[in-house]
């Protein structure tokens, strides 16, 4: 009997080019996604050394972090640094023969949304990008890592990455999710349980009934935040849903290749009895809609809870909680449902896919954004935007009072014009609530798209289940 392997072991072994005695390995990279912020010096390095991109056909480039989301952005990007970075990406893509989805291309969008959408992302692949949320692609059973600029250059030049193998961690979510609870609540609850360092040094495989029952969009939301749990990558074994999602996409295998690919993809699961270095089990029926109250993604509580007191924590976390609450402008003991918000942001690579927008539209049905609230929806890609328009979702959201934007990272991070003002409080479907992440002094509460919609209606953090029963 061969040694039972985990899914991670199998993908790793299938891409091992070389291994040194000390475990330092050269791993083959199947797909490389490139965006404007972390790539200019890497291309510059290639030029200086007179190197070419080894496999331009396995590389795709898209501007997303810096781009404004107003409709006139294709004419001109006002901010000079941003404009230069976007222009540099354009020039580099042309010079090195890489496919680019430019700002005026309907396929443009957040790098982690367009990868799966265009079929670049496939089960069993190794995928990298100079961006920590590359873990998103793990939802397809692909080993996907974020990398630094010098590594971007390394992959461009050699199509490989120097790596040491991580440990295996299993997170199992048993049973089915209750009504009103979504993928975002699962992953935030996991991070609440394991902490932001819980996955350090590990690759997490998410499994169990609740994960299996998620759509591909939901699975991407879960894997997207593996990095917030400290893990290098998140993985979900591919199944029929995965194959159905990939099938027919522009870069998906076709014809005979498709048959071969699916046959191989069916072998991508963790063998019975394979070893995990760490195991965490959650019961789906105990998960509630959650929100974050602090400035770390682990500062998460069910919406039915109250703002905690720093004294409830121990060690360094006590001081961190004190600082968080001061930054967030919150008093211990305040019911989370009483926290009033100024802004709702629906977007980011966590939650800007079509299903997320459908969820928002469902909660908004027959309701309006509260008077005076700033509420924006930023689709994850031009194609998501187009589909939402076709399904009539866009029209409904606009009528309900949402600002309907062009695709990009937008208010997920303060690098483009969509930013929070100091002290502005936001219910956000993004993935990071760090100090200043959405703009200097901005206050972020992370939550699901359904919960964000509920907050848009009432103007405060709200239990979406109340709106569902009425």
């Amino acid at each position, binding site marked *: 009997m061969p040694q039972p392997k985990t899914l991670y072991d199998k993908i790793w072994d*299938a891409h091992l*080019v*070389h291994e040194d005695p000390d475990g330092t390995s*050269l791993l*083959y990279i*199947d797909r490389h996604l490139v965006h404007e912020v972390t790539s*200019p*010096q890497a291309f*510059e*390095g290639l030029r*200086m*050394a007179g*190197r070419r991109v080894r496999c331009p056909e396995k590389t795709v480039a898209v501007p997303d972090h810096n781009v404004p989301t107003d409709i006139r952005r294709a004419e001109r990007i006002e901010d000079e*640094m941003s404009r*230069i*970075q976007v222009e*540099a990406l354009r020039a580099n893509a042309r010079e090195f023969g890489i496919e680019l989805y430019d700002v005026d291309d309907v396929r443009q969008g957040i790098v982690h949304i367009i990868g799966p959408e265009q079929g670049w992302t*496939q089960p*069993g*692949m190794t995928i990298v990008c100079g961006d920590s949320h590359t873990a998103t692609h793990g939802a397809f059973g692909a080993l996907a890592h974020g990398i630094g600029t*010098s590594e971007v*250059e*390394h992959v461009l*030049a*050699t*199509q*490989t990455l*120097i790596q040491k193998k991580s440990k295996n961690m299993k997170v199992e979510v048993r049973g089915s999710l209750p009504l009103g609870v979504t993928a975002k609540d699962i992953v935030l609850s996991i991070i609440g349980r394991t902490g932001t360092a819980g996955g350090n040094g590990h690759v997490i495989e998410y499994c169990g009934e609740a994960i299996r029952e998620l759509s591909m969009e939901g699975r991407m939301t879960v894997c997207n935040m593996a990095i917030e749990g400290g893990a290098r990558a998140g993985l979900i074994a591919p199944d029929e849903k995965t194959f159905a999602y990939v099938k027919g996409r522009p870069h998906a*295998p076709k014809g005979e*290749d*498709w048959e*071969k*690919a699916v046959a*191989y993809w069916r072998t991508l699961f963790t063998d019975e009895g394979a070893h995990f270095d760490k195991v965490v089990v959650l019961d789906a029926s105990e998960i509630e809609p959650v929100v974050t109250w602090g400035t770390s993604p682990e500062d998460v509580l069910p919406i039915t809870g109250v703002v905690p007191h720093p004294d409830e924590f121990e060690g360094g976390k006590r001081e961190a909680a004190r600082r968080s609450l001061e930054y967030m402008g919150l008093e211990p003991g305040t019911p989370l449902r009483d926290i009033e918000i100024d802004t709702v942001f629906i977007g980011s690579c966590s939650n800007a896919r079509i299903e997320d927008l459908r969820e928002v539209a469902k909660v908004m049905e027959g309701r309006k954004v509260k008077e005076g609230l700033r509420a924006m929806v930023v689709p994850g890609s031009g194609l998501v935007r187009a589909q939402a328009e076709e399904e009539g979702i866009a029209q409904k959201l606009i009528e309900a009072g949402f600002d309907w934007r062009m695709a990009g990272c937008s208010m997920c991070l303060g690098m483009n014009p969509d930013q929070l003002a100091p002290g502005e409080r936001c219910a956000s479907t993004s993935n990071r609530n760090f100090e200043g992440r959405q703009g200097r002094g901005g206050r972020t509460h992370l939550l699901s798209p359904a919960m964000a919609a509920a907050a848009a209606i009432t103007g405060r953090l709200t239990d979406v289940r109340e709106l569902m029963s009425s």
Partner: protein
Amino acid sequence: MEKFTRLTGVAAPLPMVNVDTDMIIPKQFLKTIQRTGLGRNLFDEMRYDDDGNENPDFVLNKPAYREAKILVAGANFGCGSSREHAPWALLDFGIRCVIAPSFADIFYNNCFKNGILPIVLPQEEVDKLLDDAERGANATITVDLEKQEISGPDGGTIPFEVDPFRKHCLLNGLDDIGLTMEKVDRIEAFEKAYAARAPWAA
């Protein structure tokens, strides 16, 4: 990465201790999209006054040192932040060797990644080189990495130590990418087998 074998050039004296990376390249120059072009702002705050005019007293502005290839400096050179922009700026100016009694760790490592040779010497040897360097354009020094030897303008030589693996990388111009490129046969073999096994991915 450019090879480093034997370097002959003018050595500029900078007898300050604790030259930090913010002095080497201030943070307002980090927003660049390039690794090159930073040489103009190397030691920016010491090199230029508030109006952007050159400060004639700063060593690299003196006629004799404008083409310097070697820097002789004080202890703990390169301390501060980990920015790789510091070695990028030195390299872009044309400096490929820094000699000092000690270096900050990250900067020291970053130098090797960028084809710059940092040499640690005892203080009295550094002082001797500083004296040589004071003689300006008349003071060309040769650094021979193969022999691990510095020869001064008067013919005297000073031996130095360097890690054998790093020496190998510099002599052959190998950065991480260069090292991986040495395994290109294995990458090609992998790609061939992979194309047979998983044609849709290859």
